[in-house]
């Protein structure tokens, strides 16, 4: 008996160990299989059609070199598993490309040939805590064209397919399309200027991303002509552009060039000296294209920004109705770009109110909710309760970004504007010597249908609104926090003809807003606002009543309250206390509802699966036991 028990014990112990090994090995083997069911919204983890489209256009093999330091103990486990997912994704590329993509993997050990190759490809190793150099980067090469992702990070994982496909598209193209950028802001970055006491700044992330795909050329804000090579012109914050420059943009559109203009009644990131303030100070800059908008029938109120209670950011004292967090419901679902952007963060933007010129049609790309209204600039940055005082929604969805399509007429029917008359004291000889070059023919109308995109905000393109800069092993990595960059880049790509990349960019690492909670909060806000208004009205009425009482008695300056005044005052106090109590109750109820929702969501997410497994285990045990008893009963 003793021996049998010992045997059973040994077999059981060994069996458990073997079972653990089987589980681990099985788990590992299943993990290597490239099978997955992508249940995410938008199939985030499946190679997209855009990627397949780019791969199908390749004329010769593109080489992807993955540099990954293996065996480094100082690297977090999360990063190692991420590296595995990168390898999986590259295998999918190889499979989808049918020989047009060649994958090479290198382990850049210190002073090795692989490390030399990494450095040649622009992949720099990052120093870990132990002083080792760790490499996890990808180079994409086609002959002498190279693109590199020097650091692959989990934070940017959802954009990984976009980064790789963009790199492949970039190296596969012989010549990059040309995009012009005109801006009163230092979007292209600026060098050190000791005279103006300007520190050097980097180009905006938007421009850095653009440069990876396009040949980006800066266009001066006083340009007299837009170069013919430029196919897409991005005008960001055209503050004080002269008429001649507006004319140049006008003729650019007439020639068929694609314009994307970002104007703003309140450019928060462009602080200008406040000339009307006797004490100095700054104010937010403004920009518009006055002549062009007038000709197209576009109107934007430069004295107002949009406040929206449904898409407001923050809550409680940090509620900021003029900082709009737009979700897909605010975006045009039928537009190829906005349908895939996800969310937009619009800080202190304006809205369009158009009476379009003949021949033009408008497509709204982004709009407010009906719970919105234009508010004065002076309260643009107010938050909390003061920002909601006197709020009266218009009941209409106001356009924030629009596309105009049709045959455009020139905003300058008389031709190029000549603001300055020739000097009277000009010598006769000068006319002959400095004869003007033959003037370009003036285009009165665009020959074919054209499209122009207008956006009533500039701030949403800035790094502060669009991205989060993270330090990863000493490298600065820009992670999109919303769909702002995707919107701008998508528009340009769409206009430049490359729509394959548009869909890829929507897989950004921004947070998906909890729409149910938002709606609950919006409903409560509505009630809250109503109560505030009631309270204010009540206060006003009581104060009016007090004044009347004092007038009737004749003692306006009397400091002694009459019995009536005292009663009125007591009533007012009671009303105020009661209203405050009701408000507190309302806020508490709102929190209770959201807290309850959060609690049950957590319970389901954390506990449901283990609970189901436990129930299944128990059920199995019961069934087996019943069978055993039946068998025993049959045997006996």
């Amino acid at each position, binding site marked *: 008996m003793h021996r049998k028990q010992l045997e059973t014990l040994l077999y059981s112990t060994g069996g458990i160990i073997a*079972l653990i*090994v089987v589980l681990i090995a099985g788990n590992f083997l299943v993990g290597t299989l490239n099978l997955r069911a992508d249940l995410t919204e938008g199939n985030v983890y499946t190679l997209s059609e855009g990627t397949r489209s780019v791969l199908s256009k390749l004329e*010769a093999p593109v080489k992807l070199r993955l540099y*990954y330091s293996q065996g480094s103990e100082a690297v977090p486990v999360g990063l190692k598993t991420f590296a595995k997912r990168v*390898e999986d994704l590259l295998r999918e590329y190889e499979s989808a490309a049918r020989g047009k993509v060649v994958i*090479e993997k290198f382990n850049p050990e210190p002073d090795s040939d692989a490390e030399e190759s990494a450095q*040649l490809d622009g992949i720099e190793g990052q120093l870990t805590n132990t002083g080792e150099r760790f490499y996890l980067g990808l180079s994409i090469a086609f*002959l002498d064209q190279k693109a590199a992702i020097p650091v692959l990070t989990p934070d940017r994982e959802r954009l990984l397919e976009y980064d790789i496909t963009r790199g492949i598209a970039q190296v596969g193209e012989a010549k990059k399309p040309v995009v012009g950028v005109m801006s009163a802001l230092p979007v292209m970055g600026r060098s050190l200027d000791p005279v103006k006491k300007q520190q050097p700044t980097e180009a905006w992330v938007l421009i850095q991303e653009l440069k990876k795909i396009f040949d980006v050329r800066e266009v001066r804000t006083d340009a007299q002509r837009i170069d013919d090579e430029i196919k897409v012109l991005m005008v960001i914050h055209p503050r004080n552009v002269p008429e001649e420059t507006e004319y140049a943009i006008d003729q650019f559109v007439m020639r068929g060039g694609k314009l994307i203009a970002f104007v703003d009644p309140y450019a928060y990131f462009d602080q200008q000296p406040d000339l009307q303030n006797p004490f100095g100070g700054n104010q937010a800059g403004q920009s518009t294209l006055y002549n062009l908008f007038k000709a197209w029938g576009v109107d934007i109120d430069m004295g107002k920004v949009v406040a929206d209670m449904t898409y407001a950011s923050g809550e409680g004292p940090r509620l900021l109705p003029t900082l709009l967090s737009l979700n897909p419901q605010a975006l045009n679902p039928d537009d190829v770009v906005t349908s895939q952007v996800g969310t937009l963060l619009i800080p202190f933007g304006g809205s369009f109110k158009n009476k379009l010129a003949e021949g033009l049609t408008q497509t709204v790309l982004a709009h407010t909710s009906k719970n919105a209204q234009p508010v004065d600039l002076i309260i643009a940055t107010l938050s909390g309760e003061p920002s909601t005082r006197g709020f009266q929604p218009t009941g209409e969805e106001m356009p924030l970004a629009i596309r105009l399509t049709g045959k455009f007429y020139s905003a300058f029917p008389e031709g190029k504007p000549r603001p300055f008359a020739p000097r009277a004291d000009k010598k006769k000889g000068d006319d002959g010597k400095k004869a003007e070059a033959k003037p370009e023919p003036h285009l009165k109308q665009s020959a074919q249908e054209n499209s122009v995109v207008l956006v009533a905000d500039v701030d949403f393109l800035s790094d502060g609104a669009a991205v989060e800069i993270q330090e990863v092993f000493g490298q600065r990595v820009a992670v999109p926090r919303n769909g702002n960059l995707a919107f701008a880049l998508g528009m340009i790509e769409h206009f430049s003809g490359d729509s394959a990349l548009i869909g890829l960019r929507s897989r950004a690492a921004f947070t998906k807003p909890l729409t149910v909670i938002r709606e609950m909060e919006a409903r409560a806000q509505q009630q809250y606002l109503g109560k505030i208004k009631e309270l204010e009205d009540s206060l006003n009425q009581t104060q009016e009543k007090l004044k009347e009482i004092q007038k009737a008695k004749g003692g306006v300056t009397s400091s002694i309250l009459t019995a009536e005044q005292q009663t009125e005052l007591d009533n007012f106090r009671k009303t105020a206390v009661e209203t405050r109590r009701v408000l507190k109750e309302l806020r508490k109820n709102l929190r209770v509802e959201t807290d309850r929702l959060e609690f049950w969501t957590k319970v389901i997410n954390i506990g449901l699966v283990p609970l189901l497994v436990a129930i299944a285990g128990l059920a199995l045990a019961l069934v087996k036991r019943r069978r055993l008893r039946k068998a025993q009963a049959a045997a006996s």
Partner: protein
Amino acid sequence: MNRKQFLILLIAVVVLGGAGLAVVWRDLADYRASGAKIGAKLLPKLRIADVAEVRLHDGKDQVTLVRQEKAWVVKERNGYPASFQAISDLLIKLVELKVTQSEQVGESLWPRLDLAEPGAGKGAGTLIEFKDAAGKPLTQLVLGKKVLKKDPLNPLPAAKDGVPAGRYVRVGGSKDTVVVVSDPLNAAEARPGRWLDKTFFKADRIRTLAVGPEGAAPAWKITRNEEWGQWRFAAGGGDLNPSAAVTAVNKLGSLEFDDVAVGPAPEAAEKPLVAVAETFDNLVYTVRMTPRKGAKEYLVHVAVTGEAPKQRAPEKGEKPEETARRDKEFAEARKRLEARVAAEKAMGKWTYVIERDELGPLLSGRGEMVAPKRGDPRQSPFGRR
């Protein structure tokens, strides 16, 4: 658990564990395979000792470096001595160079990487051929485009697109395989002047220097009595600009040439200028400088005459024990001088090509050699003709 169940589990461990190990091995093999393609020597079979001729050709220029009995010479320069150091550096570098990256590139795409054969028009690279003493080809390779690496810390405008960090190379006989090496091989030029031995004459210890048009009186002549004495105009006539004098004299001791002229003498732009320098060693250097028409360079011919003194003049108050030492030093110095002068005399058969800027101090007119008066705008001592 009974024995049967345990054995089943054990078999499962062996099967799954083995499969797992196989997968891990395969993953590691991917990294090993990629690593094996790189790190190999670029020219594994080439032995430096076998190389007797190196030819570089880029479609515009060609240079053939030939190893003769005692030295290497440049064939395109009528056998002018080549720089052994430059050839040695190139050969050692090429033999030691390893492949950093490898690509499969068809012949139709070679011009894209500047790897087409020289003479093929656009996209041609620099061909380097190695031959042995019998003239048999050893190997050849074509150097193509340089690989640029971004250097954000480099403020130079030229570094905007990156700095050269490597080069595409196509080794002869490798079919469609193109490699990248981690050295831009900047020195591998096909310009013959690049490979010449740049040893040149050095006129030192100059006592007098006269510069003027050929066949006429010198424009100016300066002299000094002692080796470390003050310079003055030989025939009087104004104060000498000491800085201009020293610069002109020093230039004769440090001239560098760019190339050697071969073939018929090209047309001269003007009459030649001649600089005659007499030294304290009784040597006379006659440097004839002829400006080349339509070019910013001069054709220079150097003739060295005279013989160094055979005996040393004892110094005042010299002690007997110092005499022997100084005599010995003098004898050694004379020996070195004789060897140098012999080499410089041999240079007399060559015509050198020197940039005008390099000759600048010797091209000064008399006005530039005169010390400027107070208040006068200072003229550059390096006046140009």
